[in-house]
């Protein structure tokens, strides 16, 4: 059991070890945190209720207080195709995000280390999977708009 592993323990673990084991001090921080969270939430609710102005009435209950009348049903259906387009966009857009750090690191790899091949292989594999996904989506008719 190397000592380095122990020192690498998390801050929480260190905190637990600091106080007497199982004693109040060890858990105090956690308790205070919880207390703060609860107090903040409850206080906000109470203060809004007490301080905020509250009126009731027919006009107050309408959708747009400014006077515009709503037209039609608010629950309109979107074409499911929008959803697929959004998904496809996300998929291929996020792929790009992975390329940036790779490109930035690749130029800094020493030429003599041999990491080039490995890194290139990885990216080729990554792009290959993207291409397969692209082909699959194509075949499934995702890009057909008719």
């Amino acid at each position: 059991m190397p000592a380095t592993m122990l020192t690498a323990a998390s801050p929480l673990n260190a905190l637990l070890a600091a106080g007497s084991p199982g004693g109040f001090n060890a858990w105090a921080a956690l308790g205070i945190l919880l207390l703060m969270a609860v107090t903040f939430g409850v206080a906000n609710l109470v203060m809004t209720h007490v301080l905020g102005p509250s009126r009731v009435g027919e006009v107050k209950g309408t959708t747009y207080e400014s006077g515009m009348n709503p037209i039609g049903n608010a629950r309109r259906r979107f074409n499911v195709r929008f959803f697929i387009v959004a998904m496809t966009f996300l998929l291929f857009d996020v792929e790009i995000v992975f390329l940036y750090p790779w490109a930035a690191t690749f130029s800094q790899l020493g030429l003599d280390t041999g990491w080039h091949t490995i890194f290139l292989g990885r990216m080729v594999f990554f792009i290959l999977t993207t291409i397969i996904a692209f082909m699959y989506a194509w075949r499934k008719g995702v890009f057909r708009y008719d």
Partner: protein
Amino acid sequence: METLLAKLGTLWPEIVLLMGAVSCLATGLNHSPFARRLTPAVAAASMLVAALLVLIIPDDTVHPLGLDGMGWFVKLAVLGVGLLLLALAAGVPDALMQQRRTDAAVTFDAGTSIKGEFYAFFLLSATGAMLTAGATDLVWLFLALELVSLPTYVMIATTRDTAIAQESAIKYFFLGAMSAAVFLYGFALIYGATGFTDFENIRAAVEADGVNPLLIVGVMMSVLGLCFKVAAVPMHVYAADVYQGAATPVTAFLAYVPKVAGFVALMLVLSLVGWPLPTPVLALLAVVAVLTMTLGNLLACVQGNLKRVLAYSSIAQSGYLMLGLIAGPALGADVEAVLTLFGGSRDVSQPIGNGLAAVLFYLPAYGLATIAGFGVLGVLWVDRGENPDPLDDEAQTFDSISGLWHRHPFLAGVLLVSMLSLVGIPPLAGFMGKVLLGSSIVSAPLQTLSYVLLIALVINSAISAAYYLRIIIVAFFGRDAEATHVRPTPLRFAAAAVAAVIAFALGGHLATPVAQSAHEATRHGVVKAPPSELPEPDTAVADAAP
């Protein structure tokens, strides 16, 4: 970097399955009908190659938790039984297409066909189960578990065109997501308590610092979350609805693959704290085990739908399996070491008494019996009369298998073997499994709890006989159900029959090698037995020896 590459080297079977999944997508959506027809064969071939690779590649890696051969065993169990599941599931997409189209000769529509996806997802889920067995890190474990579950949601929703299938997919998805949140939280707490996510360092930290409360809470949350995967109380509520809603071959898949992954994950998580388990974890597991088997069996007795009966039976079987987890590798290497120190010696070459080996043995035994049962249901279809609902012709009710014996004696025989194995009647695999589980729990150093759990196992076996017997009675003694017919799916039929035959063999001469390798896989499991906690007769014997 090298370690990552070295790790990749042991993952070739999984990689092959992944490639197989991608190939299935390609062939399943191919323009050529021939290639499309080839898809299940591609899936089967990739599973065979993967199994071959598991057998060929020497697994000499030292498992950080002492479960050296566990990965090997579980991978083979997943692939072997998985092949039967594949044979059961082959043809599900085609049948679906036929149901959708009234006019037979229609052109292939890639947009609505699920031919590629179904087999791909099948392979992906199996890959997840195999990766679970190979996990050496909490993050890896989590990802592998999710890989098991995510494809199954789609498989449930797409393979049956009924509202109930959609409903069960959604139920499964949301409850699965919730359970993932629970055990992920547990993993996070384990990380918080030890500062590491990889098993080796967690183990080292636990050995150095001992078990702290945070770690115990983490392990308990993980156990609760994983209860979903194995369909154990309190996370069992989805099982009946989901099993009923999914297409029968998919149900068989759900009853086996996620359960294997779940139990393997439980084994790994519990190994982090080691056996004998800390009291809170022990109490949790014992309560979960007893509740699971009792509730599962009692609820199974009152079901009117066969798939629901088998669902509750699957819940109850999880309860039995939990006993093995509670017992742990009772006669593990470390106990041996401690005893040698005191002059005694332990023969640890026998798998009997090793709870983890019992779990590993019982999983395929249970799986085969369940697959045979679901296989028989999958082979049958019911003609619903003048108002046919073409989308739901599954044999699900007791009436639909009534008098099966008179018309299809062979199917009835398969069903008989399956049910008797699940009850635990002697020459079958289920009996051997229960003997292993029972003897492991009785030899665990838990004093009274051992006996309570053994009695619970025994009494529940008796309760379970009621509903398994009801199925046999209906199938053999009932009036012939004239609306029930047999599907022209010889492969599915063969899968059920082969499963029944192996269930027979696993109770006979196959039992020794399987149990022995299960034992070899787990005998060095994490056991920490300080001399004071040893069962007293042992030390007494050691003292008395001159």
